[in-house]
């Protein structure tokens, strides 16, 4: 099992906040990303990923409070690299990808963005954010809501920024969605 704090992608100790420009740049990056995904601009979204990306969403289980977080180190909903994400994006272009045709209408709310220097790599920042995705499918009147906390490592560059690592911790232990056919 993993302690949530150790998932912070090598974050520096609390308090070592970075300057507001960097904070702003990270927030803009995450908003841009959410916009691409909500608009289903997957090619544009894919451009935001670093070729060395590690993209994970572990399974979690409800445990006793004294028995860790229940966040698995071995089981995942997503455990992706650049090539596997490329495959997923490619699949979505098929008109026979039934889970996403007709597409899930998603609305991503990204908030509580906390940015710190990255401990391991000075070229990166560590961004921790909350995510709520409202998913509407077909003619269903009510959305399925997916919530998660994300621990990202982002390379903020001049003009181009890239997502280098993401760990998305879903709050659910049993998914209410019939499939996880969206990126989180």
């Amino acid at each position, binding site marked *: 099992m993993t302690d949530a704090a150790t998932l912070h992608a090598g974050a520096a100790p609390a308090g070592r906040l970075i300057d507001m420009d960097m904070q702003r740049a990270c927030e803009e990056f995450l908003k841009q990303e959410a916009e691409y995904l909500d608009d289903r601009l997957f090619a544009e979204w894919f451009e935001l990923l670093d070729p060395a990306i590690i993209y994970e969403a572990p*399974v979690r*289980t*409800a*445990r*006793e409070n004294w*028995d860790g977080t*229940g966040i*698995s180190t*071995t*089981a*995942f*909903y*997503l*455990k*992706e690299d650049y*090539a*596997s994400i*490329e*495959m*997923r994006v*490619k*699949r979505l*272009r*098929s008109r*026979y*990808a*039934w*889970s*996403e045709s007709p597409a899930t209408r998603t609305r991503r709310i990204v908030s509580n963005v906390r940015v710190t220097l990255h401990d391991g790599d000075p070229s990166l920042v560590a961004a921790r954010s909350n995510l709520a995705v409202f998913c509407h499918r077909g003619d269903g009147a009510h959305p399925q809501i997916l919530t998660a906390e994300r621990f990202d490592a982002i390379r903020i560059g001049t003009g181009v920024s890239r997502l280098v690592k993401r760990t998305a911790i879903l709050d659910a*232990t*049993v*998914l*209410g*969605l*019939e*499939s*996880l*056919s969206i990126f989180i």
Partner: protein
Amino acid sequence: MAEEAFAVPASIEGMVDDLRQGLLPAAIFHDREIYELELRRIFAKCWVYVGHETEIPNRGDFVTRNIGEDPFVLIRDEEGELRVLLNACRHRGAQICRVQAGNAKGFVCPFHGWAYRNSGELIGVPARNQGYAALNLEDWSLFAAPHVVNYMGLIFANLDREAVSFEEYLGDYKWYFDIQFALSEGGMEVLGEPHRWLVAANWKQGAENFCGDSSHTQMTHRSVLDAGIIETAAAGAPKEGTGLHIHDCSGHAISIRQLPGEAPFISYPEEVTRHLHPGVLNQDQFDLAKRSLLQNGTLFPNFSFLHIGLSDSPQKPQAGFLTLRVWQPKGPGQMEIWNWVLAPKEASLEYKQRAYQVGMSSFSPSGSFEQDDVAVWPGVTRSAGTVFAELNKVRFNYQMGMGDMSSSKPLADWVGPGVVNSTNAGEGGLRTFHKTWYERMTNTKVEICDHD
């Protein structure tokens, strides 16, 4: 089976004649009365999968599981014995375990504090001298499944005291079943906690699909063919020679794809296949595994397996893995799918991680295959629930490959048990599942000779 037949619910009266014609009343995917009977006549009487020994390797390790909709705790007690305990306090019924997994020497009920050992024995009752002086603790152990079996690492439980042994239940199907679990000497190992997710479809939809629905892959999974991560040999149109459909095998069914003249061995690489030996399997079983691209089947009622090799990207080599499923009933119109990914125990840690990644990327809530299965199945449940279906006694068509529908006849000289077709253009496995279902629901024998 006991002699006495059960009362037949009105919505499936005449179903034997339907089955004989390869038809299936839509009501079985929707009717609430049918569902309630399934919980009692099927899930309370059949051998139901509750977990794998590698999920709970140490004494006190437990996971919470379900039989039908009833909650149980699967635990390895202090003696190392596997117990399947009803998650309900014997005092007044509170749940003694409120988490999904952990390790415990015992459970103390959060309501009034009755305390149980991890074997289920009651060992303490608060204020006993004042209020429960005459209580005989031995009479108030946690309820437990009367039959629990560890079969090649798979733990099955049966709530029916009169149940036949697991071996008898498995019957001739053992020949195929064992191939999945005994290829390596150490057996198979579960790689991590299960995926669990809700799908608005009846539990039988998943169970029948794994019995050999070969004609759905080229349509349902066409996007994966488009994305280039599977070849048409493994997921393309049904064909003579590449597919084997084995049905009417002690009430169970299996589907196999092979590459004629080749030995893909479920796409396990050499670093894994060198650990694979016949062992308890005979040479015919072992050779069949070698020739196989994939094998998938359902052990009635709701335990399925898929032994296959895939990749998460066309740029990466294929990796073999085994996925296990439980199609957990959650009312007539909903199921919870449980999914585990396994690999041979002797494989390297690196390979296991790769196998997990590939398994998850194809068969899981985010799986490039599975996403599309569950996008389609809810439609069936919805159709089955229409007033139109009820008023018009709608029957679905399961006739593919049956009688005059196909020129292919069962193989006469097959090495294994069951009725075997060398084409997978048929739905014989699905018909087998529904025959078994009807037998269990009515406690009768259905004699239908099915030439798929």
